């Protein structure tokens, strides 16, 4: 059961706390979205700027550098080959051997060594010497120097030789694709002797495929998807990283107009031109191209834009990773901060709820107790009322009367008492110390004392009755140490009305008011309260015989709770004067109307003041 209670407690508590957590989450989400948007904007802008810069740089610098490096390598190789071939052509020993119709042994050996040296030491594929005198085609290839062929003007395959002899310039570079071997050779053909009357053609052959493959291998290190093409004057591809491209027409790969631009004879030799195109798959390529020195061959390097911008992908990935990390970090931070910040607030809410729950519980407990006490007092009131004479009883001895009996707290210390005898009746009004339950306890005790007293000491002497009551009090209430301070007691007034309507009155601090027409008399009792103390300079109690107009007099007994009740503008007690003038004013009314008037005036005077004490007023006329 307790567990269930706690569960409900925490459940109720969670309502507003979860609202708070909800707020926290909202703040965190809003913060993260803000950061995310900022990051996105920043990254997109950054990437766009970088992209533009990269493309720009790619076109103006990078592509040219890359192609330039390739071209420079090729150019340099060819140039070296040209140099080597030129050196060969100027060699006097070589000339001597040719002029001896390839018979001079010494120069022959030298020529063999020289050609061999070029192949073995300088890495050319082939070195050759073809004499215009003997038509012998000497070749050094693969560690072997031999007469490869005897050229003939009739053989179309040998036409290159006779064309070279007639070309009227020192050298020519031929590029010779070998379709069977799928290799491309660059031949440097140099004239030996006078340009107008050459005696031989010499030179070296260079395997360009080897060179390109080397470049390709080099390029492979960078894992670039670029392509390097070597295209002959007819627009056919003779070298490519991609074997599928070989011997295909350039225009199969490039757009028509770009092909034409590239293949224009006068295009640049020393500088690269830049272009871009979309291939058939719609992929964007950047292209650089130039003419290879001394030839009509073109070197074309192309690279997919996506490739050259590939590193942007890694930037994007890095940015995304960084962004995500930042977001996760921020979420953590936000969470931490909001929890740290919100925690005391949350704790306060929790405490507040706990306290409220406690207050509710206590209030309920109090209510329960209150109801119990209330019930108990209500019951006590029923009992207390049984000791008060009924209206019917009063009616048998009084001509007209009213009773105002107002305990402050349901029950109280005020009471009145009536006893009839053969020769008259006794009427007593009393105000015991205290109110509420303590007062009521006193009234019960005094009530039974009075019953005993009239049996013991008689009923015709009111003062004696009060004296005896005082004596009984001193006997009864001795049980407590603190008796000195609380000393329970009462103020009282006793009237004995004889059959002949003679009235004897005795009062302990209480008065009797006699109203005749408009004259009012207060017969004061003795200034002594009944508190069980005897002896000591206490004035005794006296009997007063009341003189009155038997036809018209009305009588009033009251306790000081009425006259002492503060009220009015200045919070002063109601006072006897006010009561007396009120009685004078209303004395001719029927008792029940007097009662109404008295209470109304009292209510008007006291207003919202809390009632301080029990009060009782008896008003009556006697003659019947």
């Amino acid at each position: 059961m307790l567990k269930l209670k706690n569960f409900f407690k925490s459940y109720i508590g969670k309502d507003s706390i979860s609202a708070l957590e909800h707020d926290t989450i909202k703040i965190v989400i809003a913060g993260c979205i803000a950061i995310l948007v900022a990051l996105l904007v920043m990254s997109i802008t950054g990437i766009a700027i970088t992209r533009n810069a990269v493309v720009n740089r790619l076109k103006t610098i990078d592509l040219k550098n890359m192609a330039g490096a390739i071209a420079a390598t090729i150019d340099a190789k060819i140039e070296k080959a040209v140099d080597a071939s030129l050196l060969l052509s100027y060699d006097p020993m070589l000339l001597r051997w040719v002029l001896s119709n390839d018979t001079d042994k010494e120069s022959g050996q030298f020529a063999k060594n020289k050609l061999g040296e070029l192949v073995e030491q300088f890495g050319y594929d082939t070195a050759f010497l073809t004499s215009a005198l003997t038509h012998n085609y000497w070749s050094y290839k693969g560690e072997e120097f031999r007469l490869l062929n005897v050229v003939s003007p009739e053989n179309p395959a040998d036409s290159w030789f006779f064309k070279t002899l007639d070309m009227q310039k020192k050298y020519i570079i031929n590029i010779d694709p070998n379709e069977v071997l799928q290799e491309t050779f660059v031949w440097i053909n140099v004239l030996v002797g006078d340009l107008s009357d050459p005696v031989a053609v010499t030179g070296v052959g260079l395997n360009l495929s080897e060179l390109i493959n080397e470049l390709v291998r080099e390029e492979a290190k960078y894992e670039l998807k670029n392509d390097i093409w070597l295209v002959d004057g007819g627009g056919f591809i003779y070298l490519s990283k991609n074997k599928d491209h070989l011997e295909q027409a350039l225009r199969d790969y490039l757009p028509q107009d770009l092909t034409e631009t590239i293949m224009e004879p006068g295009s640049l030799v020393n500088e690269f031109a830049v272009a871009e195109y979309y291939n058939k798959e719609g992929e964007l390529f950047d292209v650089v191209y130039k003419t290879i020195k001394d030839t009509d061959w073109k070197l074309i390097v192309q690279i997919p834009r996506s490739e050259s911008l590939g590193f942007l992908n890694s930037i994007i990935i890095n940015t995304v990773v960084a962004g995500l990390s930042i977001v996760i970090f921020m979420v953590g931070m936000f969470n931490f901060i909001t929890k740290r910040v919100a925690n005391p607030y949350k704790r306060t809410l929790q405490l507040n709820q706990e306290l409220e729950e406690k207050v509710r519980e206590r209030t309920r407990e109090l209510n329960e107790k209150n109801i119990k006490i209330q019930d108990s007092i209500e019951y006590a009131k029923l009992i207390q009322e049984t000791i008060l004479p009924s209206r019917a009883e009063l009616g048998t001895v009084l001509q007209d009367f009213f009773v105002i009996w107002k305990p402050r707290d349901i029950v109280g210390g005020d009471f009145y008492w009536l006893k009839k005898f053969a020769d008259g009746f006794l009427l007593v009004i009393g105000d015991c110390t205290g109110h509420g339950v303590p007062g009521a306890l006193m009234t019960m005790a005094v009530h039974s004392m009075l019953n005993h007293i009239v049996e013991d000491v008689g009923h015709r002497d009111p003062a004696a009755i009060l004296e005896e009551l005082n004596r009984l009090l001193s006997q009864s209430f001795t049980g407590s140490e603190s008796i000195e301070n609380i000393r329970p007691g009462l103020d009282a007034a006793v009237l004995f009305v004889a059959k002949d309507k003679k009235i004897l009155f005795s009062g302990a601090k209480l008065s009797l008011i006699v109203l005749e027409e408009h004259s009012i008399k207060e017969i004061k009792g003795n200034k002594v309260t009944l508190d069980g103390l005897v002896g000591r300079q206490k004035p005794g109690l006296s009997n007063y015989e009341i003189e009155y107009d038997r036809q018209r007099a009305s009588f009033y007994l009251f306790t000081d709770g009425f006259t002492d009740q503060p009220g009015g503008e200045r919070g002063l007690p109601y006072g006897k004067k006010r009561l007396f003038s009120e009685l004078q004013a209303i004395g001719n009314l029927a008792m029940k109307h007097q009662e109404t008037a008295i209470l109304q005036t009292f209510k008007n005077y006291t207003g919202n003041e809390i009632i301080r004490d029990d009060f009782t007023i008896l008003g009556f006329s006697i003659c019947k």
Partner: protein
Amino acid sequence: MQNLLIEKTNSTPYINFNAVSGVLQIKGESFPENAAKFYNPVMEWLREYLDCTSEQTTLDFEIVYFNSSTSKIFMTIFDVLDEEVKNGKKIVVNWRCDGENETAIECGEEFEEDLRYLPFNIILF
């Protein structure tokens, strides 16, 4: 000795007993449910104070309303003071009340009648 200060409530008076100046003030209304309990510390303070002072002491009462049990306490206080004055202490009681508060005036007069040595001034305002 420490002063005694009790704030007023709905049913109890403001009490300011100053041991240094010798002015002891009780002001307001007095109708506590348990007067003996409320006035016990007041009585204790007073007894202790009277034990150690020989200076002029003034008790200022300005009570608009009080119940009968409070009245008994006041009676006890006045009896104690009466005895002290008889033994030579210099004590004065000022019973202050509104000129229109007949109940308070009457009570003051009744207190005064019972005293033999203690100077008891009823001061109306």
